C-alpha cells in the first residue's frame, strides 16, 4: 500500500469511528446526566447493564470505536507537537489501541457478568 493510500485509510477510519462515537457519546452524555442525577452506585450501573442486551452491545461498540479513534488522534498530535513519528511510534500506538480494547471490553464484561 502506498503511503498516500495508508494515510487515506487512516483518515477514513478516524472519520468513520468519529461518526459512530458521535452517537455513542450523545447517548453516554445523556446517561451520565440522568444516572448521576439519580445518585450513582455500583448496583445502579450493574442493574442498567443487565436490564437489556442493548446496553452491553452498545458499550462494546463504543469501546471498539474508541480503540480506533483515540490512537489515531494521538498519532497526529505526537507527530506535530513532539516530533515523535515512525515505525516505533506506530507500534506503540497499536499496543495502546489493544490496551484500550482489552481494558474496555473487560470492563463491559465485568459489569455484565
Amino acid at each position: 500500500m502506498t503511503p498516500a493510500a495508508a494515510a487515506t485509510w487512516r483518515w477514513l477510519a478516524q472519520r468513520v469511528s468519529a461518526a459512530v462515537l458521535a452517537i455513542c457519546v450523545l447517548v453516554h452524555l445523556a446517561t451520565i446526566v440522568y444516572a448521576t442525577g439519580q445518585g450513582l452506585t455500583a448496583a445502579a450501573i450493574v442493574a442498567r447493564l443487565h436490564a437489556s442486551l442493548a446496553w452491553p452491545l452498545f458499550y462494546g461498540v463504543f469501546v471498539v470505536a474508541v480503540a480506533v479513534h483515540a490512537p489515531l488522534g494521538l498519532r497526529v498530535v505526537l507527530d506535530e507537537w513532539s516530533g515523535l513519528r515512525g515505525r516505533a511510534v506506530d507500534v506503540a500506538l497499536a499496543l495502546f489501541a489493544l490496551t484500550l480494547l482489552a481494558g474496555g471490553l473487560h470492563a463491559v464484561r465485568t459489569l455484565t457478568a
Partner: protein
Amino acid sequence: MSGRAPGRQAATIVQAAPVRRNDVRARSHPAYWAFVVHRVSGLVLTLFLPLHFWALSQALDPPAFDRFLAWTHAPAVRLTEIAIVVALAAHLAGGVRLLLVEFVGWRGDLQKSALALCTAFVVLVGVLLALNP
C-alpha cells in the same frame, strides 16, 4: 532559483534554513480556538480512558466500588469529573462540526453559527451536571 518546468515533481524538499514562526496574534480567530479546544479535550480524554476502564472493572467488588464512588463526591474530584465530561461534550461538538465541514461541504457563515451552537451545547452539559446532587 524557482525556474522549474511546470508539472515536474520537485526533488526532495529540504528546508535547512531556519524560518520565522507565527505567534498568538496570527491565531486569534474562532476557528483556531475551536481547534485548540478539540485537540486539548482529545488529549485529556485519551489520558483519562485507561483510568476510566480500570475504575469500572472494580465493580466486581461492589462495596469497594461504592466507597470509590463516595470518594468522587469530594469537591475537587467532582469538579474534575465535570471538567472531563465538559471535555467530552466539547470534543463531540467540535468533531461533529469537522465532520460537517469535511463531508457535507462548507458555506461561509455557517461556520460561525456552528461554533456558537457547539459552545451552547457544551455549556448546557456543564450546567446540567453541576446542578446534579
